[in-house]
């Protein structure tokens, strides 16, 4: 990276008592990048974000966000970033304009700079005609965009989006992501989400497990590394029950079999000879076989599995938060 990175994280660690929530995490996010940050509940995701936003001091290690050290200048960090969460606290009874004025004021904007800022940000999120509507009356997708407008009003170089699209309909979500893309043209976007398909929109994705960051790459890179091989979806009658499942698992190189509604999804290791014909042969009766792509959910599960095995597999899933 030639330009200095927007976010540089080095050995970032945070302990609460004896519990290490974030354990020597390090990564860089380049300018103009959309960086996805995933992890199970309690994996240390929110703790990391709170530290990067200057809301929580690290126990060890440090990070430079928008040119400021979070350990020594958290206030500057807070001023140079934008933050928006699913629970973003808009005032529903206020109009879009009044919400923007309030949040602009909170960042010390006033007068003509505030007015111009509001005008340009409304244009950006395409809410010019809704400016005098009360925020609570807008549909979810629009509210989300008002929240985004409030977060970028003070022209931060970096925006943190914490589950920004939860519950929003797919059309509005796609629109929102197109918007995020255009924001990334002039700044950096750091985003967390529970929608695995949404993580595909990111340039790179980091995956936290138990306080560490064992996986960090482009979505395609993650899939190649953690979910190698081919995936087949088998559909047809007579697949119900353990028998079909067992037969598929017995195929050479079969790694796992999942139930998908009335069908089965089987993953086969990279060099294994098992192909569609072999699957057809293993099952009696007519079935349809389609090749499927790995998803980031597959990656997520593979990373968590690998981590659990490495850790002696003793930690129960979804354990202590």
């Amino acid at each position, binding site marked *: 990276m030639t330009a200095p990175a927007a976010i540089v994280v080095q050995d970032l660690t945070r302990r609460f008592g004896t519990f290490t929530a974030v354990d020597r995490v390090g990564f860089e996010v380049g300018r103009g990048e959309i960086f996805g940050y995933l992890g199970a*509940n309690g994996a240390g995701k929110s703790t990391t974000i709170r530290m990067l936003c200057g809301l929580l001091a690290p126990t060890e290690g440090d990070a430079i966000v928008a040119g400021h050290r979070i350990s020594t200048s958290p206030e500057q960090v807070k001023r140079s970033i934008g933050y928006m969460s699913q629970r973003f606290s808009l005032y529903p009874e206020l109009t879009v304009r009044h919400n923007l004025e309030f949040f602009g004021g909170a960042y010390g904007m006033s007068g003509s700079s505030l007015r111009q800022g509001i005008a340009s940000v409304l244009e950006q999120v395409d809410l010019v005609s809704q400016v005098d509507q009360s925020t609570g009356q807008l549909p979810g997708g629009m509210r989300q965009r008002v929240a985004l407008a409030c977060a970028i009003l003070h022209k931060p170089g970096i925006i943190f989006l914490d589950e920004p699209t939860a519950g929003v309909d*797919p059309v509005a979500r796609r629109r929102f992501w197109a918007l995020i893309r255009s924001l990334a*043209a002039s700044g950096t976007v750091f985003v967390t989400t529970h929608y695995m398909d949404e993580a595909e929109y990111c340039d790179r994705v980091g995956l936290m497990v138990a306080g560490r960051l064992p996986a960090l790459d482009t979505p395609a890179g993650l899939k190649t590394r953690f979910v190698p091989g081919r995936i087949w979806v088998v559909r047809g009658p007579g697949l*119900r029950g353990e028998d079909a499942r067992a037969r598929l698992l017995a195929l050479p190189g079969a790694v796992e079999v999942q139930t998908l*509604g009335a069908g089965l999804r089987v993953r086969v290791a990279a060099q294994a000879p098992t192909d569609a014909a072999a699957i057809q042969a293993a099952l009696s009766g007519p079935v349809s076989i389609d090749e499927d792509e790995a998803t980031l959910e597959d990656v997520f599960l593979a990373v968590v599995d690998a981590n659990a095995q490495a850790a002696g597999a003793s930690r129960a899933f979804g354990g202590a938060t």
Partner: protein
Amino acid sequence: MAATPATPGQPAIQIRDLVRRFGDLTALHGISLDVHPGEIYGLVGPDGAGKTTTIRIIAGLMDADQGSVVVLGLAPDDPRVRESVGMMPQRYSLYGDLSVGENLDFFRQLFCLPRAQARQRIQRLLALTRLSPFVDRRADDLSGGMYKKLALACALLHEPRVLLLDEPTNGVDPVSRRELWTLLDEFVAEGMAVLVSTPYMDEAERCHRVGLLHCGRLIAQGVPATLVHDLDHPVFVVEGGDRAVLQELVEAAPEVQAASPAGARLRVVVKPGATAALRERLAGVDAHLEPTRASFEDVFVARIGALEEAAA
């Protein structure tokens, strides 16, 4: 005691033309669907589409303004139905100050299950949900995923024939989410009828059949693979060209139903029969179309687009 004998082939849940209004707002505009034993029916849609209202009406927690609901051959608020229906509400609805074990025991008593018989079931459910080590933990101290699994265990305790799940995987991480689905698969294989709602489009393919709910209307219904297969909108990834230029061009192109980022590239859902025109348009900026697999979300987007156009 438990409800009626199920006639083979008879749906466990049968809904016809369900309408429900809240004041001026019509939450459901005539929904009809069937859920059969041994089937997971997915009600897929965003917030506010009417998923929770539908489930609450089936559970007998709300009345419909019009239309009919028959659950196991009876009206949904018939006390006999409740013996055979399990329900997991979307909101946190267990007792946070009670432990995992106490919550389970409370629901065991409400269903009047004998202790000895219930003990086995509880053991099995605790094992399946991997909650056994946490029996004495207060429900409030569980993580989101564990809490949902406990709620599911409470809903399954009386071995219902119909299971209603309102967004069981919302806010749950992928690991717990897959565990929940694996659990469901197990019970459905035993013949349970499951109606599950979800805002996650990618969960649709885990259901035997799905209904796409949008603004109180079912805009599509069927087997997920078939719905994707039958999508008349081709889906492509745009290769080459300058990204910023492309973005503007694609957003303005009348041939494009919806565009979304795919990594650094753009993904487009094209209107039926408009592929050639779009190819031509893109050729002007040195970009071309690469076919890609349609997703379930593409189906949703295409249907909403078609509806909006029909309305306009």
